[in-house]
Each structure stands twice: as structure tokens, then as C-alpha cells.
């Protein structure tokens, strides 16, 4: 069996047991990338040399007994919006197409301490703005289940790389569903932790109050194990939370007896594809069979989440992306006439359409005279949505629903109608607005053979509830390897 079929913890165990060397594992990943990358385009940067050098170092540490983590030596891919010292970090944007950071993001450092070997940086929607990974300056990533379809986004490169088995696991980031939705489209498992659980230091910000780094892997076990490594209280991130318990793997128990699962009616109404609906509700029934208590309820305010999200995220983005001006780093236009012309031309040429759209939207809602009408109203809506979830979590341990209204659309069909694309985020963005943890895991395929994902949401700091429910469901079903991974 190919090493790339293994899970991260599975391969990690073999490496610790000396059944597989780190170099073998890394070579397997590099070979897979070489074979599949042309068809799938999930990487912006592939670091063959660095990965092989690092493999030797990690092997030595393992041999000396200094690295005992079950992620040591396992090849990983990092979304290209996390800074990696000395390695190109582009956010899939022309404006950062030459940017090499002088430091490494805290979450990535945590992985490195555990012995992870980075094979490369994955493609994404430009600055994480998009739901298809089509807004990348480096071209769209293709879905390993059907290359005529998108991967979802914005962490499409990470999810496709895991699904195509070019790496064993990956890190993504989730501002409005950017881990969960592409995980669903690519048939892998992805998790967004509670806001503040993983340090944002070194994550190039899109919407600072919503961004959160999380794992993308083949199964729930891997996600829990990876989260355990990347989560930390980081004094360099003021919004980082010191948690009492980082032992997420202790929730990997096949037992949901008596767990209360709320099913929001609002998530199963008009707009939801029939096949997706059926698969998700069937998954809920599997959990019921195992002893979970299901109950339908009205979450309310669902329709307000999208406008509130796009106002807050774009407002923050308009300010976060101001630093990309051609002065200090990144792309600078070749010809210009004075400072303002340099700013204007560098930014006009360096940013893509969707990014410009969101910068303009964000600048508008923060403008004097509109601030109260839009931005403040959006913040109030955010607070109300949090309240609605507080009320729900007073009754339920877990909320179950779809990840996205449909399976992966065809490439080239989404960007022409951005408003429609934004509506596709309806089930995922509330978790970001309320800071909640969420997990997306495969629960079926549609008639086109494309994966369907189910989403479990938990209350803030209750990752263990969703890990437990997700793990229990996962036991009812075999992991399905994507067609591209088998090629």
C-alpha cells in the first residue's frame, strides 16, 4: 500500500516504530506531487530540497529519542497565507508574489517543534477571499474527485492536496468556512477551532476577528491530534486564549449515548440541494442509532449572517490589506510618477478582482456617514447571532447541519455572480461570527460522484463535543479515497 494512503497518526506511528523512514515518507509525498500536480495545481510552492534536508534532521531527532510526537516526520502542506521563514508566502496574490517572510507563523512553529516536514505551500483564493480557489493569481486548483469542478475555498489547495494524497495532512485557515467548505467539496475532514485557540501570529490577516487556523486531514483522529499540536496560548497574539485543556484526542471515543444534537430547521430550507439534504439527515440518523438524541429547532437570524459577515470581514480586510503598497515588500509597479501613483498602480496591478471588490466594500462601510448604518449594525447583528447560539447550546451539545448548499460546482461558473457565491457560505459563517468550533466531515456522495460533507458545530471551547460526535459517525463509514489519489 502506498504510504500516502495512510493517515497522519498512522504514518507517524510507523515512523516511530522505524517501519518507515522520514525520507521515505517525504519522498512518497514529493513523488505524488510530481505525478499529480499538473492535473490538480494545489501547490504554489513545492520545497523538495528543504523537505528532504529537514527529513534527515527529523529522522536523527527521532533516532535519538528526542521527537516522540506521532506527527514527527509526517509530510504536511501549509496554506500559503501562513508565514514560513525563508519560504515564499504569497497568499496566492501577485502583490506578494515575491514575498519571503523573515519569520514563521506560530502554528507552523508548533508543528515544526513536533517534527513536521513541510513539503510546500498550498494554493488558495487570493488573500482567502473566495469560495472556490479560483481567485488565485496562480490559477484554480482542481477537485481530485472531478477535475472539471472546483475544490471550494479558500483553503482549496490544502484540501485538494490531502484528498489527492500529495501530502498526508495540511493546515488551512477559516474566516467564513474556508476550511470546512473545501473539506466538504474534496471529501476530507477539516476543523475550525474556537476563535483564540490557535495563534494567528504569522497568519496573513483577512478578517482578524474571524480568522482561525485549523487542520485538514483524512479523518477525525488526525484532526484532533493536529489541533493538539498547533493549539497554544501565544503571548504574541492578544486574542489568543489560554485554555484549561488541550487534550483533544481524549474525545476520540465511539460513544454518543445521550448526547443532544440540535438540527436547525433554518439550515434545511430552500436553497439546499436535495441530495445534500438527504445525505446529511441520514448521517444524523446514524448518530441517533448510536444513542444520540436528535431535535429540530429554529436557530433564527440565519438570513442576517451573510450581510453581517461580509461587512465585518471586508471592513477589516480593507484595513489589513492596506499595508500591501509596494513600499516595503511585495510587488511594485515598474513605472510610476510619484508616491500616490505608485500606490495606485502597484495595488491596481497587484490585487485581483475579488480582493479589490472586498477592499472597496470594506472601505465603503467604514466611511464617515456609513459607519453606524453598516459597520455598527453588523457588529450588533454579530452579537445577536452569538446570543442565538448561546440559547441553542443551552439545550444541545452539538448542532448538526450541511456545510454548503450544494456539492462542488464546475470551474468557471461561480465568479461571474459574486452575490450568489457569497450565499454559498450561509451554513459556515455563523461559526466565525460567534467564534464557535466546527468540523466538516464526509457523509456521502451525490449522483455526480462528488463528496457531500456534514458540519458539526459546538459551543465555544467545546471542541471535544464535536470531535466525539464526528468520531462516532466516522466509525459507521469507510474513508473513501478520491479518484485522483488512486491514479
Amino acid at each position, binding site marked *: 500500500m502506498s504510504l500516502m494512503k495512510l493517515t497522519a497518526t498512522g504514518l507517524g506511528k510507523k515512523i516511530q516504530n522505524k517501519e518507515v523512514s522520514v525520507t521515505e515518507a517525504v519522498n512518497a509525498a514529493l513523488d505524488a506531487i510530481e505525478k499529480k500536480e499538473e492535473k490538480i495545481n494545489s501547490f504554489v510552492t513545492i520545497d523538495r530540497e528543504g523537505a528532504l534536508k529537514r527529513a534527515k534532521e527529523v529522522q536523527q531527532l527521532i533516532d535519538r529519542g528526542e521527537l516522540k510526537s506521532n506527527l514527527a516526520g509526517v509530510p504536511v502542506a501549509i496554506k500559503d497565507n501562513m508565514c514560513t521563514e525563508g519560504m515564499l508566502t504569497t497568499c496566492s496574490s501577485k502583490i506578494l508574489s515575491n514575498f519571503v517572510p523573515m*519569520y514563521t507563523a506560530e502554528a507552523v512553529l508548533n508543528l515544526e517543534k513536533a517534527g513536521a516536514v513541510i513539503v510546500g505551500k498550498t494554493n488558495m483564493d487570493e488573500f482567502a477571499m473566495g469560495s472556490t480557489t479560483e481567485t488565485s493569481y496562480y490559477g484554480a486548483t482542481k477537485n481530485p474527485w472531478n477535475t472539471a469542478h472546483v475544490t471550494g475555498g479558500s483553503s482549496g489547495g490544502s484540501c485538494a492536496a490531502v484528498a489527492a494524497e500529495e501530502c498526508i495532512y495540511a493546515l488551512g485557515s477559516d474566516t467564513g468556512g474556508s476550511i470546512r467548505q473545501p473539506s466538504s467539496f474534496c471529501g476530507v475532514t477539516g476543523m475550525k477551532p474556537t476563535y483564540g485557540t490557535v495563534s*494567528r501570529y504569522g497568519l496573513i490577516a483577512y478578517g482578524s476577528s474571524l480568522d482561525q487556523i485549523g487542520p485538514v486531514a483524512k479523518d477525525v483522529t488526525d484532526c484532533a491530534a493536529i489541533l493538539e499540536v498547533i493549539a497554544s496560548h501565544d503571548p504574541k497574539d492578544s486574542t489568543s486564549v489560554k485554555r484549561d485543556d488541550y487534550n483533544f484526542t481524549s474525545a476520540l471515543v465511539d460513544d454518543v449515548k445521550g448526547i443532544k444534537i440540535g438540527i436547525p430547521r433554518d439550515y434545511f430550507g430552500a436553497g439546499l440541494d436535495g441530495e445534500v439534504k438527504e445525505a446529511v439527515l441520514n448521517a444524523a440518523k446514524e448518530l441517533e442509532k448510536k444513542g444520540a438524541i436528535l431535535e429540530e429547532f429554529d436557530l433564527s437570524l440565519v438570513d442576517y449572517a451573510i450581510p453581517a459577515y461580509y461587512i465585518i470581514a471586508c471592513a477589516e480586510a480593507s484595513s489589513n490589506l492596506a499595508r500591501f503598497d509596494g*513600499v516595503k515588500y511585495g510587488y511594485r509597479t515598474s513605472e510610476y510618477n510619484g508616491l500616490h501613483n505608485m500606490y495606485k498602480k502597484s495595488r491596481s496591478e497587484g490585487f485581483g478582482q475579488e480582493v479589490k471588490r472586498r477592499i472597496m466594500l470594506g472601505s465603503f462601510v467604514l466611511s464617515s456617514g456609513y459607519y453606524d448604518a453598516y*459597520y455598527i449594525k453588523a457588529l450588533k447583528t454579530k452579537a445577536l447571532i452569538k446570543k442565538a447560539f448561546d440559547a441553542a447550546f443551552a439545550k444541545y451539545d452539538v448542532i448538526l447541519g450541511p456545510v454548503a448548499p450544494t456539492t462542488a460546482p464546475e470551474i468557471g461558473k461561480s465568479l461571474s455572480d459574486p452575490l450568489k457565491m457569497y450565499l454559498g457560505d450561509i451554513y459556515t459563517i455563523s461559526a466565525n461570527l460567534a467564534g464557535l468550533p466546527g468540523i466538516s466531515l464526509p457523509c456521502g456522495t451525490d449522483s455526480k460522484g462528488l463528496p457531500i460533507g456534514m458540519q458539526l458545530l459546538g459551543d465555544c471551547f467545546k471542541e471535544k463535543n464535536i470531535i466525539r460526535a464526528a468520531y462516532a459517525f466516522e466509525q459507521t463509514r469507510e474513508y473513501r479515497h478520491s479518484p485522483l489519489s488512486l491514479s
Partner: protein
Amino acid sequence: MKQYETVIGLEVHVELATKTKIFCSCSTEFGGEPNSHTCPVCTGMPGSLPVLNKKVVEYAAAVGLATNCKITKNCKFDRKNYFYPDNPQNYQISQLYYPICRDGGIEIETKDGGKKTIGIHEIHMEEDAGKLVHDEWGEDSLVDFNRSGVPLIEIVSEPDMRSADEVIAYLDKLRLIIQYLGASDCKLQEGSMRADVNLSIREAGTKEFGTRTEMKNLNSFKAIARAIEAEKERQIDIIESGQKVIQETRRWDDNKEYSYAMRSKEDAQDYRYFPEPDLVPVVISDEWLEEIKAAQPEFRDEKINRYKEEYKIPEYDAQIITSDKHLADLFEATTAICNNPKKVSNWLMVETMRLMKENNMEPAELKFSPENLAKLINLAESKAINSQIAKEVFEKIFNEDIDPEKYVEENGLKTVSDDGALKEVVKKVIEANPQPVNDYHNGKKKAMGFLVGQIMKEMQGKADPALANKLLKELL
């Protein structure tokens, strides 16, 4: 001509004396190679995040308490968005909606000896920008981010001042309070204290404010006073000629004693302020506030009273010495060693002030130690050196902080109070100067001074002048 009243409010920026920057651990030290005090945070690198320096909050709250402000227990930071290359993120982290201090005020003395309270609207914390360095030979500009992220507080007054004198009195008082707190050295010339003047005029007796202008680039108290006079005249001329004052920002050129418009209200930028999502609200607990209160130092008025009581020095001396925190510290340290407050006060008020003025120095720049001044005072008091020599030695102390005991010893400056040796010189001088001796005997007392001078010259200044006088009289 109509009578006009000038209405002035100030925005004062003060650089806080923290060791590290407001949102990262880089040094705030002045100077250094360009971009040597920088890190990913203060250069706006992608992915970097700010972490608030606790000391900045303590200094800002301390200034607020000392200026009778209300402290916002849950204050927040906001982003002020604007593009400029000295501002690496293209936004400044500042406070708009919930500044740390509000609604305070300080009392000043007016020219006529009365008291007046100048209101403080708010004090907020923010970060300083970097510096642009323009290449004189090329077309390029370079950016130095060493100052980027240095903590500032901005103290916004109410429009309560009516003259340049009141403005100077307010600034002086503010400067002293902040210096005494140790929150800043408040040097206008070096920019650690900067004042922007908002000024409007109105007909005397009216209640409504006129249109105001904001004046920038004021680097000394004198420049502030000159700019206020000039702006007042300019606005009166405009109104007298039937035109309207335009709300705008103006830049003062102190060499030309003239200001010119930088930007009008119409071109004012929309800063698109919004709450800084990378920082959590600053919660100032009652306990913390109590700690800050407890750490407040003795302020000037308290010091003046204590000096009069404890050291028995006159009000006038106490006023001058406490006019600067460094001077007051030097006074107390020196007095603690030599236990002679009046002499210490004299040395500080006369010789120190004179040399400072000659060298165009601020008290903060004084570099001599209290130990050496105390030693000098002891030498002079024990008559080991005479007052002329003492002044010369002091200059050495002032410039090089030499040890006066060693210096006097090594240079043989001790007063010669040996009768025999001095008597010989006196005799010699009398013999060599028959004419002045004659004059003396004929009642010209001035001749005595000349003769003493000659003796001192012979003795290279080391004679005890009283003894020389006595011997001269005897021998004559």
C-alpha cells in the same frame, strides 16, 4: 476697530519614556542605525500582531490622574486608516471611541496672578510613525522605522485658553507634571513633546466660536508664542476685510515667522476609524488604578512647601529649583550628601544656570554628579579653596564631572593660608607698587583692591582673600 477675543485649544503629543515600544519589544532608544530598532510588528510585516505594553497604560493613566481626568476602565484601541510611507501598516493604532482618560483639567496662573482652570477633553494612547529620509542627491526617499511604534499620548485640551501666555503656562504646567511622573522628558526641541495649536477669534462678548485653524510644526515655547500672535493677527485681518476664515491645517515656519496652509477641511481625509480587532479591550481594575495612584510622586507644589519647611530655603529658590524635575532631583541628592541646602541651591541657581544658558542646555542634559558638587561645596565651606577657585573648579565639574578633591590636589589649587608665605608676597607687592601704596595712605580706598588683586595674581589665585586683606592692612 472691534475688540476680538482669541480662543485656543491645544493638542499635545508626548512621547512616553518606556524602554520598549507600545506594541512590540523593540527598544525606544533614540538614535541607532536606521531600522536597527525594528521587528516584524513595527515594520508592518504581513501576519504580525500588536501586543500592548502595560507600562504605556500605566503612564497614560498616571498622567490622567495627575490632570484630574476620569479613567476609562474599559478602554479600547481603534485603527486610523491613511496611506503614508512612514506608517508601515498604512493605519495607526490609536484611540477614538474609548480613550483612556476624559474630562480633566489643570490650574494655571494667569499673568495678573489669578488662577484659571484649563479643561482637558481627553488623553489617548497611540503609536508614533517612522521617519522619511529624503536622499538629497537622488530622487528616492528612504524610511527609517526606528521611531515606528514609539508610544505617544495625545492630550487634547478644551478651547479654554485666551492668550499665548496662558498657552505657555498650560504647557509648562503639563510638562512639569509629566516630567515629575517620569512619564516623559518632554523636550520640545527633540520632539518628545509636540503641540498643535487650534485657534479661532471672535468678537469680544460673543458666545459662539469662530472658525478655527490648526497650526503645526511648533518646536519651542517661543515659536508657539510667535505663531499664536501671527495667527491671531492673520485671522483678525481676514475678518476685518470682510472675508471668512477657512478651516484648515497650517504649518508654521519659525524662521520666516509665517504660516502657510497645508490642507483645508475639504481635503481632510476620512480616516475610517474602527475598533482594532487585533487587541482586546484594556481593563483597568480598581486595584491596578490604586497601584498607579500609590506610585504617584511628589508634585511641584508639594515639593516647594517641603523645601521651605525641611530645607529652610526661600520660596524664590524653591520655585526655581522645582521648575525642572532634574534640577530638583539634583538638589535633593546633593543636599543629602553635604547637608547644606542653601549652598546647593546657590550653586544650582547661579553658576549652573549661567553655564546652562551659555551652553544652551536643558536641565535634563546636566551630567555632573551630586557627589562632586557636594565635595566642591565642602571644599569651599572649609575654606580649602577660595570662591574664585571654586567657580573655576565648578566649570570643570559642569563640563567633565571631575572629582574636585583630586583636581584641587593635582593642580595645587588649595588656598595658601600660611601666614609666612603670604606675608612675603604681601611685602613684595607693597615694595613693587609704591604709587598705589601712596594712594592708599592718601585715603584712596580703591587702591586696596588693586593691591589685593596683585597679591592674588602672585599667588595664582590660591590665596585666602580675607587673610590677604588682613595682612595687607597690617603691613601698610
